[in-house]
């Protein structure tokens, strides 16, 4: 019996390890391709984020999972079941909308109870579950209030409760924290994370805030122009971006355009367009094969750049420049250095001691392992 089960799994391609799958999904609006053939597999219990700039198609992707849009091509599966021709009200997914979409004519309690009542749950059960959900989001005392009487953050929590109370397979969150101020946002991020850990439900979050994605997610898919540029864990995305876009979008970075001059098993030699020669750790192209030649972009994170006042030894990448700006940011300091080559480099150092004043010659250096060569 077990054997036939696995056989079935293999032959029909259902893999119940994944809660949500998108297979070669395309979406076209009025002749414009908004989602270009993306493939996503979201594991059960995962906190998955779709990250990208506005207009990249991430919200559309979420709506495709929820059922508010139908794919022009491709398939959406939830728990292995194809969702083609399945309307939103029959999908085991619940959405937390960007503007909360709380029913203004119902109280908080009635809003949260909405989904349960639709399913005709018994009165006692509804009472209990709504109470539980409100407790979860710390809104028990507000049961009789109307949405218009709540603040943004409170509405957000009610929207969350409303989705969670139905115990869906997947919770979809469409930029839920966008309308909140910074402090509140940070608080809510922590709460979201706690909820996720407590409940163990699959979360799919859509956001343009990379810090948010990085701090909350188990895995991130970076989207731009309707395609997934890279998918991986936060550290993978951050430390090992695979394209210049990802490198630039996630965190700050310094980019140098150039080409590979020499390839070595342990290192690459790159000459930038401005003539700088760098030692870079080996890299692979998009197919996984080692890069040996061609145009590349070298990415160096500001926090990996060291500032010195005297030329260090030759083993590191070292370039001379002039200190242009210093920005004191409390926990750390930002320097903007103009290299002799003309490149402007951002450097980030923990709040250190003597900060030199402008125009002094400085030497920036970093190791070969601190920079990445990304195929163009």
């Amino acid at each position, binding site marked *: 019996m077990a054997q036939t089960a696995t056989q079935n799994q293999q032959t029909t391609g259902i893999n119940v390890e994944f809660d949500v799958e998108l297979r070669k999904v395309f979406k076209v609006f009025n002749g414009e391709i908004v989602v270009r053939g993306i493939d996503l597999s979201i594991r059960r219990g995962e906190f998955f984020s779709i990250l990208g700039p506005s207009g990249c198609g991430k919200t559309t992707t979420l709506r495709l999972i*929820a059922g508010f849009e139908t794919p022009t091509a491709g398939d959406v599966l939830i728990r292995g079941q194809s969702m083609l021709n399945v309307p939103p*009200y029959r999908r085991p997914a*619940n959405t937390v909308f960007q503007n909360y979409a709380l029913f203004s004519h119902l109280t908080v309690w009635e809003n949260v109870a909405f989904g349960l009542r639709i399913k005709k749950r018994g009165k006692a059960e509804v009472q209990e579950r709504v109470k539980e959900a409100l407790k979860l989001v710390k809104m028990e005392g507000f049961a009789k209030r109307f949405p218009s009487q709540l603040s943004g953050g409170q509405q957000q929590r009610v929207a969350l409760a409303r989705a969670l109370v139905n115990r869906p397979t997947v919770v979809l969150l469409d930029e839920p924290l966008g309308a909140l101020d910074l402090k509140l946002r940070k608080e809510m991020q922590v709460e979201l994370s706690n909820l996720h850990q407590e409940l163990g439900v699959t979360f799919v979050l859509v956001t343009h805030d990379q810090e948010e994605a990085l701090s909350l997610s188990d895995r991130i898919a970076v989207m731009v122009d309707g395609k997934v540029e890279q998918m991986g864990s936060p550290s993978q995305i951050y430390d090992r971006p695979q394209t210049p876009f990802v490198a630039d979008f996630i965190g700050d970075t310094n980019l140098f355009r150039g080409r590979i001059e020499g390839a070595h098993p342990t290192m690459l030699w790159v000459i930038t367009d401005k003539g700088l020669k760098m030692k870079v750790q080996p890299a692979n192209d998009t197919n996984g094969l080692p890069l040996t030649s061609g145009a590349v972009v070298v990415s160096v994170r500001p926090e990996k750049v060291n500032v010195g006042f005297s030329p260090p030894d030759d083993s590191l990448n070292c370039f001379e420049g002039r200190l242009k700006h210093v920005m004191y940011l409390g926990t750390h300091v930002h320097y903007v250095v103009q290299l002799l080559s003309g490149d402007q480099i951002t450097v980030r150092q923990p709040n250190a001691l003597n900060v030199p004043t402008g125009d002094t010659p400085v030497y920036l250096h970093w190791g070969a392992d601190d920079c990445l060569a990304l195929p163009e």
Partner: protein
Amino acid sequence: MSTKAPSESRPIAPTPQWLQALLLLAPAGVWLALLLVIPTLLIFELSLVPNIKPGDLVNPSGLGNYWRIFQSDVLNVIGRSLLFATGTTLLCLLMGFPVAYWIALLSPKRWRNLLLLAFVLPLWTSSLLRSYAWISILRPTGVLNTLLTSLGLPTLDLLNRSPAVFIGMTYSLLPYMVLILYASLEKLDRRFLEAAADLGATPPQAFWKVTVPQTLPGIAAGSLLVFITGLGDFINPELLGGTSSMTAARLIYNQFLGATQNWGFGSALSMVLILAVSLAIALLIKYGDKNASSL
């Protein structure tokens, strides 16, 4: 450095707020007072004189005219007016809601104004003309029956019966209902419907649990407007209603212009109608959609 203390400088008295309000409201207020308030008071005074007719001295003496209203024949007439008004309101609601819904939520955006215009157009023709048009459509040998016989179907004897009155009144008042409902539905947040679907509501469920409660002010406004207008309509019942077509409005007309010339009773009946309409308007103000009722 010494500056002049505020108490020493001459204060400029601003126009007191109540005077400002008075000046702004005066034109409309005078208009209303002369054409609405005072005539209503005069009618009220007349209604307190039993058996008055032109040429008599006006001496308010009692509520005799009001007791007459409770006689069965008068109550019957008032009941008929209420029946026509209520029935028309329900019909307008049943027919108007789907149309307004379609125009507001389902039709292509660029057609919307055109569709609304199409609905408003009948209002530009005289209402009397429209009633006469219905006569020529619903007559035994009219347009409708000619069409039916050419299709081999049996004819309908609608004219000079209550159905014809409902048809005529509904036709006249439907545009108002559609416009008011449209205004309410247009403001409906589509995301509410998405949220409802997301939470498991089928389209019919979403309709009853979200759309209807959200547009309730518009429904109230439209219904009250149609009801109030329908209550005063006596032309459609008379032209289309046949032998049982006496309405409250017509009864009032008969008191003033009929053989008995009982202006006192007519005034009392008028006061009752005014009261009913005022009540409906009060409800409208309280529950109606503030933006839609401005239509």
